[in-house]
């Protein structure tokens, strides 16, 4: 699915990540954790082609991202659902339209998709806010909307950067259940978080693997947390 081979990355100063080799197996469930500033967001960006590695290769669905043209990257983003840490929306469109945006830009809008949209909105608890504009949403509502937008295309991989950063425990459990549900449907899920209790809660529902960034490396954390 996603394969990193001896990948290194630096924003210009010293190396932030170096010599990382990692394979995300299809259909598995991962957490990515590590202290703030360790490079979780950076690693995710490498995984969806927003950043090119300064050394090594990133293969997405077997293709080298370095060889992808801009349209190739665009096509890739339809297969990888991303929840960004700073969720950005089109502020002049309603929440419902924003969530359906990936369908529209890929020309897949349809009546059946509208049904999915309503179901999804209900799942993330935004049915009441469907016609609101994004600036009118609370932080947690924005994150739920971002998650809904990330999965509406039914992507093969879901990458979520702190998807539960702004929501209460109950809502974070709901979002987690949605992600677990997606994983049961065969999708690969990678969640960056430093919320250890979320990881623990997940482990009761799904076979989750935990990747930890420390010392510029990614390590598979032990079964015990």
């Amino acid at each position, binding site marked *: 699915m996603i394969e990193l081979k001896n990948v290194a990355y630096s924003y210009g100063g010293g190396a932030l990540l170096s010599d990382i080799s990692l394979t995300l197996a299809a259909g598995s469930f991962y957490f990515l954790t590590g202290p703030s500033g360790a490079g979780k967001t950076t690693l995710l960006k490498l995984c969806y082609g*927003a950043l090119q590695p300064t050394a090594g290769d990133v293969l997405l669905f077997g293709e080298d991202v370095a060889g992808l043209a*801009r*349209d190739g990257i*665009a*096509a*890739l*983003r*339809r297969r990888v659902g*991303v929840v*960004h840490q700073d969720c*950005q*929306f*089109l*502020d*002049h*469109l309603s929440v419902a*339209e924003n969530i359906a*945006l*990936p369908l*529209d*830009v*890929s020309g897949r*809008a349809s009546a059946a998709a509208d049904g999915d949209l309503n179901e999804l909105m209900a799942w993330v608890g935004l049915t009441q806010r469907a016609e609101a504009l994004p600036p009118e949403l609370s932080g947690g509502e924005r994150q739920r909307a971002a998650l809904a*937008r990330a999965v509406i*295309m039914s992507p093969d991989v879901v990458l979520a950067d702190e998807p539960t950063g702004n929501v209460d425990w109950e809502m974070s459990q709901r979002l987690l259940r949605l992600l677990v549900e997606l994983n049961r449907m065969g999708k690969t899920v990678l969640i960056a978080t430093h919320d250890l209790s979320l990881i623990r809660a997940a482990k009761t529902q799904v076979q989750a693997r935990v990747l930890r960034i420390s010392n510029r490396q990614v390590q598979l954390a032990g079964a015990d947390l």
Partner: protein
Amino acid sequence: MTVVRLDLRHLISGDRQANRVVPPSGVTAHLTIFAAAAMAFLAVFAMAMSLAAGRLAARWGDELAQSSTIRVVAPADQIAAQTQAALGILETTAGVAFARALDEAEQRALLAPWFGAELDLQALPVPQLIEMIEEDEGFDAAGLRLRLAAEVPGAFLDDHSRWRAPLVEAAGRLRLLGWISALLLGASVAAIVTLAARAALAANAQVISVLRLVGATDRYIAQAFIRRFSLRAFGGATIGVLCAMIAVAILPGASEAAGLLTGLSFQGWHWVLPLFIPPLCALVAFLATGVAARRTLGKLT
């Protein structure tokens, strides 16, 4: 070319959503429409002027090109003899198709505007005029002048091309200026649309980045802007052209003594020509926005 054709089809069929993803932009839109309307308005006049100048040049060039005049100035008792002598020379001059002396009534008609209709030509030392029509190849004016000077001292050749040539040239220049103006107006539309499109792309940087993140291709994003600016240019130019055509239509019509000013209106099928301006404007905007969009988008991640 196929890309352009595809994009054009997409543009016309439209994509409601692609149009919605870029927020509406109020003032910029109105300015673009206004500029396109003004340019189209001016282009119609440049076109009308070019066509009128072209007609004038053609008329001066063709109708008058074939005719010249000989003036016979002599004492009253010799004038008939000299006129006969001049006609005799003309008959033997190569390139002269036809020559005849104007009769008294024609001469009086020519002078009537200045002296009144009751003029008695016998009382005045009026020269006798001989009208001559050239053959297509023309004749040797210098040679004819020499022969006339030698044999008919009172006869002078008025070669119309002397005063006609600069007028024809001026009309030709005017026509050229008209077309250059039309080209410059088209280029101005391209410049204005490029500036407006760049401003719009810059103002919508965040929108563009969100669209990229959710998997929109450059083409999809560019389309939203291209469609918008092409439609604005088309709408503005249509308004401008219609106003200008009405203005041209109510100009005073071409009169008998048609000069450039009175003959400015379009004639016959030329009325169709201004209708090409709006689609042309839209095409210019389409290409200009496309270039601007591809440039801007290429720089983003």
